[in-house]
């Protein structure tokens, strides 16, 4: 029974670590900017696909390199998703600050686009998008140096948009006609792809009867590194100081000369980059598909809500708590412990599957919010709406 419990706690912690690493970026963005990013799961998916691509690239390099791909994949996944996050913030979210519900819908739109993009991305699509961006944004950039740009802006957009779209799709159609499948074949398709862990991450550590897979230990370690890194960044670096100050009082920080727009962009890119790292981590646990992000998004939101907004500690405690409780219920570890009480046994047996455990965890969360509506560590302040 004790062994079972230990096993349960280890597994719970490893699930919690995955949840935490997925929720970390979300918690930072939500806590700082009040932005609910429903595309966070898709950013994780992008990170996972980046890992897949890096793995295939390193496979071609041969033996000593193919074992180390995971390190480079982590870095690249961070950079790629951070860049996507930056574009997202500059292009969409920036216009929606102070309207959280609208942001939620807009990011859901982004998440749909990214999902379909992962399914149907091919050379034609990439080339088409590149041509469109080059023509449209190039023209905007060239014309933006004219003094009367603001006056003609609408005209420029109205003219350049159809032209760029037309040229891009015509080129795409031409390439598709000429090279056929070589350029139109989707890179990944709708099927899931598999990332295999390097050899040194296979197998597991054996402690008595307890089996701890190295991949899970690696993820736990990665989570610790990320949390520590975020903590140091927020507490010790100049940009961390700016971020914290904007978080506490946006208008006061702006008065004191902190570039709040830049802080927002950096924070969002950071949160997105963390999503990329999370995606890299979850790619070690199972296969990667366009729907990968969807499986995590609600759980990670629960972590943020239960933890209390903008508190790193809250997210950690909530992730570990939800992960552990989820595992303990779904694996029926608790059943022998309540053996004398028949109704409780029936209850735990009924909820003893992965999907039913979620039902019970949700009920527990609702019950918990009755006691502490602001989460474990609510934000202190005088705001009426807090």
């Amino acid at each position, binding site marked *: 029974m004790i062994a079972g419990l230990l096993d349960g706690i280890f597994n719970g912690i490893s699930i919690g670590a995955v949840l935490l690493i997925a929720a970390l970026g979300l918690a930072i963005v939500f806590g700082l900017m*009040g932005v*609910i990013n429903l595309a966070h799961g898709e950013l994780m998916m992008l990170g996972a696909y980046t890992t897949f691509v890096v793995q295939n690239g390193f496979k071609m390099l041969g033996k000593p390199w193919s074992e180390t791909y995971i390190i480079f994949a982590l870095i690249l996944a961070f950079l790629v998703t951070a860049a996507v996050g930056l574009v997202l913030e500059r292009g*969409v979210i920036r*216009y*929606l*600050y*102070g*309207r*959280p*519900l*609208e942001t*939620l*819908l*807009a990011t*859901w*739109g*982004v*998440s*749909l*686009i990214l*999902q*379909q*993009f992962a*399914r*149907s991305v091919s050379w034609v699509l990439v080339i088409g998008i590149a041509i469109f961006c080059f023509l449209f944004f190039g023209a905007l950039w060239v014309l933006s140096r004219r003094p009367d740009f603001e006056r003609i802006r609408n005209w420029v957009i109205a003219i350049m948009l159809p032209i760029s779209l037309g040229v891009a799709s015509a080129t795409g159609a031409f390439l598709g006609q000429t090279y056929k499948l070589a350029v139109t074949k989707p890179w990944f398709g709708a099927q899931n792809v598999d990332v295999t862990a390097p050899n040194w991450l296979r197998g597991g550590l054996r402690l008595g009867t307890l089996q701890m897979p190295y991949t899970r230990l690696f993820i736990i370690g990665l989570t610790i590194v990320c949390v520590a890194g975020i903590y140091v960044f927020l507490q010790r670096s100049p940009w961390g100081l700016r971020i914290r100050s904007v978080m506490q009082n946006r*208008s006061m920080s*702006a008065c004191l000369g902190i570039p*709040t*727009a830049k802080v927002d962009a950096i924070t969002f890119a950071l949160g997105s980059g963390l999503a990329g790292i999370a995606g890299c981590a979850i790619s070690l646990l199972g296969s990667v598909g366009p729907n990968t992000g*969807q499986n995590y998004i*609600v759980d990670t*939101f*629960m972590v*943020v*809500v239960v933890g209390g907004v903008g508190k790193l500690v809250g997210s950690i405690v909530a992730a570990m708590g939800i992960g552990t409780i989820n595992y303990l219920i779904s694996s029926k570890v608790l059943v022998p412990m309540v053996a004398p009480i028949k109704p409780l046994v029936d209850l735990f047996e009924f909820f003893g*599957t992965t*999907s*039913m455990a*979620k*039902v019970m965890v*949700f009920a527990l*969360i*609702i019950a918990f*919010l*009755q006691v502490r*509506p602001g989460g474990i560590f609510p934000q202190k302040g005088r705001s*009426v*709406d807090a």
Partner: protein
Amino acid sequence: MILDAVLEVKGMKQQRKRLLLMEVGVTIAIALLLIFVMPAVLTGFRLSLLARFLALAIAALGIDLIWGYTGMLSLGHGVFFALGGYALAMHLQLAPLKNGLPEFMSLFGITELPWFWQPFYSFGFAAAAVVIIPALLAAILGYLVFRNRIRGVYFSILTQAATIVFFNFFNGQQGFFNGTNGLTNFKTLLGASVSNSQTQFVFYTLTVLFLAAAYALCRWLTSDRFGRVLIAIRDDESRMRFSGYDPTGFKVVVFAISAALAGIGGALFTLQSGLISPKAMDIAFSIEMVIWVAVGGRASLIGAIFGALLVNFAKSLLSEKFPGIWVFFQGALFLIVVTVLPDGVVGWLRYQGFQHLLTLLGRNKQVATYPSLEEDPEVQHERENIRN
């Protein structure tokens, strides 16, 4: 809304009455048009699509009531929609059997009809359950959430989590609800064959009538004092509370009504498509329902209906031809509507479009009130200047 206010200030009760009568007349005319003319104009396939989309429009009205008027964005209306559908589907499964089990149950090793299936033998009970189960669930969930002043995005996230929970529940309980496949293969309802084209026409007529009734209900709710309270909650809940109202009760009631509307929509949709499965309560569908309202226009009931029909027809047309493109298009729709057309098509016509018309006719612009602090142009201006 602006129009209403101005009219009232001038004390033109008479004209209001005339407008109301006109609206009733127009509604009846549209309903009659849908029932008698549409079947002659449209092909059978398009008509059945229209019938389904009208059922979806009923659910959209419910969403408009809580999102457009009360400012609560529920991402969990798929649950209520599906619960209504399941309630009716359970009756449809049981109706042809006198004794015995629906086929799928014996496949999963269940030998006796579960107790909660028993009452669904009666049509009356099932019909009542279509309304009552979603409303009750919404009332309980709503009470627990609103009591603690959980709102805004937190409310959205909790409702979204509820969809996951119910999806898992219905997906996982294969013996009770046939899991992923859902309930399907309906034969008779009250003795009439469901697949019969005449019966289907009856269902279509019923959908139109229910939609008209739902519209009337929402119109009545929103034009009265109750509607003002809802708008007050949307615009400034704290101030509302300080003025001595308790928003919790109002929010619970409106959430329950909107869930009941979603349930009715779900039941009618199930009747016409012959299928209800857990897919109706996944996140994607629940958020899709919100975008119908957003496209049509929040806080305008016509907009909700119009948006549901427009988006769904666009979806069926586009996804027939290019299955991949629809998703891109849908994503873009979310982005464009939110950033460029926050009031939706009908909202644009009503606010900007109406203003344009007035200025064209040489009349002065009406004084605009703003719905909330976030949208006050002066506050916006200040914010933008701080930002730079």
